[in-house]
């Protein structure tokens, strides 16, 4: 287990280094001068040169990259925005809790609901519940999140006046305000996660149920519930754990879209602002941070996977 852990850790670190190089160099490919692009044509050349010097953009590529990584690793300093000069670390500190407070409930909701309904529909294979769940899961995969969010706003807040139009209230300011603002965004973010988990859970269980040892257990007269929980679920849910890591990516995509629809000042919104205003230090920082979270989630999932399933550990030896 220990060598497996170390190997996975090194792999994750390597991925992070690659992502940081990617995030850093992709912005260098950008044609034209980043400062000029951010400030526009009207600003005089001296001002641009002054800023370039200040941001260290005249240094060689590797010196710039090294300084950037050093700042993040030693001081948790992501640099400053080209446009406004704000500390990106401060911006992230303001926005990360917002994204987190919506993303985490959505993540949990999607996974719990997906697992539960996936199990129920597999048990009820071909029945009404199965058909309804499968229908909604397949539908969710085809419905764009921005559209479901917008339609929800129309029906729930404009027609029925159940929830506020948009915006965000921090749970520390007002719990009820947070709940009423967050309920619809959270549901919208979780749709894809729910759909994927439910489908995967269902098909895994149906596959395991066909295995010989399940038939043997049945032939031995073991109770149906015991077969389901002790023989089937244990084996069927392990692969589902791996795709939970993949769901992190979906969570981020969902957050970006939903934060835009509801005008919520979260990390996704910051990234979008960075892209539209061509503020490339913000883009770099956001990409790195998002990948960092994804890599950590995948690492934890891998460790859990190896812990539950000894075959995985062996294959990595």
């Amino acid at each position, binding site marked *: 287990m220990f060598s497996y852990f170390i190997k996975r850790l090194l792999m994750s670190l390597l991925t992070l280094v690659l*992502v940081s190089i990617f995030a850093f160099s992709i912005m260098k490919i950008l*044609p034209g001068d980043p400062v000029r692009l951010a400030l526009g044509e009207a600003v005089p050349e001296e001002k641009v040169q002054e800023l370039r010097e200040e941001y260290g953009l005249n240094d060689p590529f590797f010196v710039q990259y090294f300084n950037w990584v050093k700042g993040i690793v030693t001081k948790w300093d992501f640099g400053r925005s080209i446009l406004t000069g704000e500390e990106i670390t401060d911006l992230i500190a303001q926005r990360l809790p917002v994204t987190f407070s919506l993303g985490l409930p959505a993540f949990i909701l999607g996974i719990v609901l997906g697992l539960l309904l996936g199990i129920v529909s597999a048990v009820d294979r071909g029945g009404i519940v199965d058909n309804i769940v499968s229908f909604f899961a397949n539908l969710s995969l085809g419905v764009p999140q921005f559209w479901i969010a917008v339609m929800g706003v129309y029906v729930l807040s404009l027609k029925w006046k159940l929830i506020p139009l948009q915006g965000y209230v921090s749970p520390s300011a007002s719990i009820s305000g947070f709940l009423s603002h967050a309920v619809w965004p959270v549901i919208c973010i979780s749709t894809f996660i729910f759909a994927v988990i439910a489908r995967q859970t269902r098909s895994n269980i149906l596959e395991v149920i066909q295995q010989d040892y399940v038939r043997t257990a049945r032939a031995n007269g073991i109770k149906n519930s015991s077969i389901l929980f002790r023989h089937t679920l244990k084996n069927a849910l392990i692969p589902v754990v791996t795709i939970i890591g993949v769901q992190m990516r979906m969570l981020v995509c969902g957050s970006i879209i939903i934060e835009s629809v509801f005008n919520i000042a979260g990390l996704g919104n910051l990234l979008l602002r960075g892209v539209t205003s061509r503020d490339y230090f913000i883009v770099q920082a956001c990409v790195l941070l998002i990948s960092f979270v994804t890599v950590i989630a995948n690492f934890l999932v891998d460790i859990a996977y190896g812990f539950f399933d000894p075959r995985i550990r062996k294959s990595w030896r």
Partner: protein
Amino acid sequence: MSNDLVLKRNRRRANLKQTASVFFGRGPIVVISFVILLVFLFVSIFAQLIEPYDPLALDYTIDGKLQSPSAEHPFGTDALGRDVLSRIISGAQISLVTSVLSGTLAAVIGILIGLIAGYFGKVVNVVIMRLVDMMLSIPSLVFAMIISFVLQGGVLGIVVGIGFTMIPTYVRMVNGQVAALKENDYITAAEIVGQKKRKIILKHLFPNCFPSLIVLYTMNLGSAIMTESSLSYLGVGINPPQATWGGMVADGYNCMTTSPWLCFLPGVCVILVVIAFNVVGDSLRDALDPRLRGKL
């Protein structure tokens, strides 16, 4: 025609018939999806001929803008007085173009890299798989966004951006299949008689991956349309005034109290097409290779 050829042709016909019967045998929903895709294809190809109005023609007059659906404008007009039906048709075209181009780009690059990684194995495989892991750690929407940002937006930027996000799935799939196929005796035999590596890869390994590739390609067309519409909704996709389904929902959001159909209709188009691609992909998988069920 020789007897042999006739037999061959008959066998091929029987195979095709068999595949088609499994494909459509999954019930009416497959037929409906297939028809939706045909309509979508037809509308996109002949968009310029079908559009009742110019999708970019403005009409700022009080009577001209935000019209409710009528005989003249079946889907009404938007806040700038543009005909919504024409814009939806024009949006269909841009969706098809971006999804087919980006899907093909991803397939070509992804399959090539996957074949190389799978066949050569060892160091090549490790390096390529690390890069794939890196790409997979960046969420697809973010990836597409920054690539198209670097390429300064436009159709090219979106195509390359979305295409790049789909490369890793091809690489992983082809790599896995080739690694297994490579162990077969006929590959060893080809190597022993001294066939060139390029020939082994393209003539022996590639065709064997074909069934799963067709399925993946079909499903990717749907997800490309989804990503494209999301990017356009966020305002980082194809630049206005070009009509896009995502962009139309975003525009309609501002005047939703008076004209909700402006948001509703383009979204329904995305849903129909994406689900149709998913259903057709599912059925193709069952028809071409039932062993793939649950894996794709």
